[in-house]
């Protein structure tokens, strides 16, 4: 396959803009697609061509394979980049793209399928020698079986409802004598919540961190890692802040984890950019969670510390080029942090905050990168993900990266909608974040419950509001006589 000449980006928002930038730097033409809600979106304005593909709901536009392929045919695009989300992990879509004779900028449909099923990928990884969370997904038949398994796994263990979710039918058990009663309780809760009392057992990971490894593999048999990203700051399983390097990873564990990630990618003949996610326990043991067969939202922090443009690497690999690097060429330099800027209102129970961005100013200065999908005057629509931008900051070390991120957050201005920028300033000042000793339980209800009212700020805001009202009211009354005398006014009579 030759390098693509024209890439259609089957996505919207900041990631579409990100891919367009990479393509333009390589001298590759770009095509955006858009729904009814996105005619004036930044990705449409950034691309060289743009094609309307349907109604605002993504199921009627961004998720419709035929529409996307039609747009590629009409514009003569020879490659498709799926971004993340939408069709990016849809093996059927990947297959259709290839069958249409286009270059698919992503892994093979077979690799997407193998990693797409939680149980299949777990089995496959276990066979490839990749550590998985000890336990089985088989329902427990009796309390005796549960006791035997728990002793084999070592305490503490977790009992989980097979049909479960949301903490229902879930029990942590610390001692063998508690197993029988905990199993009975979990079963009855599972039965009443899900109508299915099946419960399985696995090892409880203490103080878990979410650490993932970026991999890059070409069609010439080279698979490399680009080190880790720590994504433990999560809210409702959504990543909020990511950083690299992981502040608690030792060199020894880092190198083990990166080797395992390469083995995981090789086990499914992976090609392109992918991410292997692990749960890292406080004891230093780590376990495979899943592999994301696409570009990640947080990929820029890896770019910041390695100097490698991951999107351009994806495009080159899809075009059949070798990566052209060895593992030793790839180094972690300094520290990078990403904050995901969401249109949501921390002061109003984190409710989504769609609407028109009336005022917008991005931070700048050294080592500050903003990947945004919005601009002043843009409307943040109800139809799509509320993430409007990513603030990515590099520092020579972690301390500098935190201080620089704080500075950049202070410069970031978004008006007309609410965002979480001020929340990040509080989060990055939290002693547990600063120390680096946090886990996936970091964002407790307490930490999410806002911050004390700042009297100074609220006084300044009141003064500004009163002056603004005064100036408005003055301009309503004062120019009245002038307006009457204007020739324009006369001509209207």
């Amino acid at each position: 396959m030759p390098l693509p000449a024209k890439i259609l980006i089957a996505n919207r928002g900041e990631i579409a803009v990100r891919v367009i930038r990479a393509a333009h730097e390589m001298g590759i033409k770009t095509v955006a697609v858009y729904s009814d809600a996105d005619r004036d979106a930044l990705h449409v304005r950034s691309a060289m061509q743009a094609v309307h593909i349907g109604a605002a709901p993504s199921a009627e536009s961004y998720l419709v394979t035929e529409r996307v392929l039609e747009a590629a045919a009409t514009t003569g695009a020879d490659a498709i980049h799926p971004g993340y989300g939408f069709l990016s992990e849809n093996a059927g879509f990947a297959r259709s793209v290839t069958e249409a004779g286009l270059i698919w900028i992503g892994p093979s449909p077979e690799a997407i399928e193998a990693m797409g099923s939680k149980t299949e990928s777990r089995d496959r990884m276990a066979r490839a020698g990749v550590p998985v969370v000890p336990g089985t997904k088989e329902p427990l038949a009796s309390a005796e079986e549960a006791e035997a398994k728990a002793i084999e796994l070592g305490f503490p263990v977790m009992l989980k409802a097979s049909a479960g979710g949301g903490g229902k039918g879930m029990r942590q058990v610390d001692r063998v004598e508690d197993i029988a009663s905990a199993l009975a309780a979990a079963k009855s809760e599972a039965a009443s919540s899900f109508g299915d009392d099946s419960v399985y057992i696995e090892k409880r990971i203490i103080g878990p961190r979410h650490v993932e490894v970026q991999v890059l593999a070409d069609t010439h048999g080279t698979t490399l890692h680009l080190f880790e990203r720590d994504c433990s700051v999560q809210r409702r399983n959504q990543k909020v802040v990511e950083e690299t390097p992981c502040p608690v990873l030792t060199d020894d564990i880092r190198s083990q984890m990166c080797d395992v990630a390469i083995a995981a990618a090789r086990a499914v003949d992976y090609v392109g950019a992918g991410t292997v996610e692990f749960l890292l326990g406080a004891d230093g043991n780590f376990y495979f969670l899943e592999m994301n067969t696409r570009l990640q939202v947080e990929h820029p922090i890896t770019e910041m510390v390695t100097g490698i443009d991951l999107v351009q690497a994806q495009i080159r690999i899809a075009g059949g080029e070798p990566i052209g690097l060895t593992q030793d060429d790839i180094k972690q330099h300094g520290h990078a942090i990403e904050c995901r800027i969401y249109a949501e209102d921390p002061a109003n129970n984190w409710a989504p905050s769609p609407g028109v961005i009336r005022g917008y100013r991005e931070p700048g200065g050294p080592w500050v990168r903003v990947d945004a999908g919005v601009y002043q005057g843009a409307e943040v629509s109800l139809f799509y993900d509320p993430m409007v931008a990513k603030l990515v900051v590099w520092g020579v070390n972690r301390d500098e990266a935190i201080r620089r991120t704080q500075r950049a957050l202070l410069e970031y201005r978004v008006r007309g909608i609410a965002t979480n920028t001020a929340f990040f300033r509080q989060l990055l000042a939290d002693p547990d974040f600063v120390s680096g000793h946090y886990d996936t339980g970091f964002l407790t209800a307490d930490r999410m419950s806002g911050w004390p009212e700042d009297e100074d700020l609220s006084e300044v805001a009141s003064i500004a509001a009163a002056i603004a009202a005064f100036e408005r009211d003055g301009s309503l009354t004062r120019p009245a006589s002038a307006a009457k005398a204007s020739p324009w006014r006369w001509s209207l009579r």
Partner: protein
Amino acid sequence: MSKGTVYLVGSGDAERSVTVRRIGETAAGGVRYGVTIDDQPEVEVDAVRPVADVLSIVHQGRSWEAGLVETDEGFEVEVVGIRHELDVMDPRKKALRMAEGAGSSSLKTQMPGRIVRVLVAEGDAVVEGQPVIVVEAMKMENELKSPCDGTVDSICVAEGDQVQARTVLIEFQ
């Protein structure tokens, strides 16, 4: 010396009376305002608008930037990334409005969305903070709560309706 114009800024416990009078202009082209908050002594601030929606204020030697978005009730003011949604009212208008709407209250949407469920019926007694309606926006369901103790006077929307921001959903007596 002119007495200035009085505004009631904010609402409820956080309401302040702010009096503004124009003193003159500074040599650098700013406007000098005398500002009196509640019963504190008057302070002088220097205000300019570098662009239409920004007020740059130099106040007691400190430089502040306030982003302004006019709303139905007043202004949304952003200072160092913190948003303040402030009602700004002429005290006479406020008194008039209080007299008109005495004893009644209404619940409005903060954002556009879809009505998922109405949890009360007309005539129901409610207490402040009781969930009364569920609105979906951005794929998340949000429970809106009664703003007061009272009874449900009228329900202005039906389940399944699409509503705009600041639509009155329920009126209370």
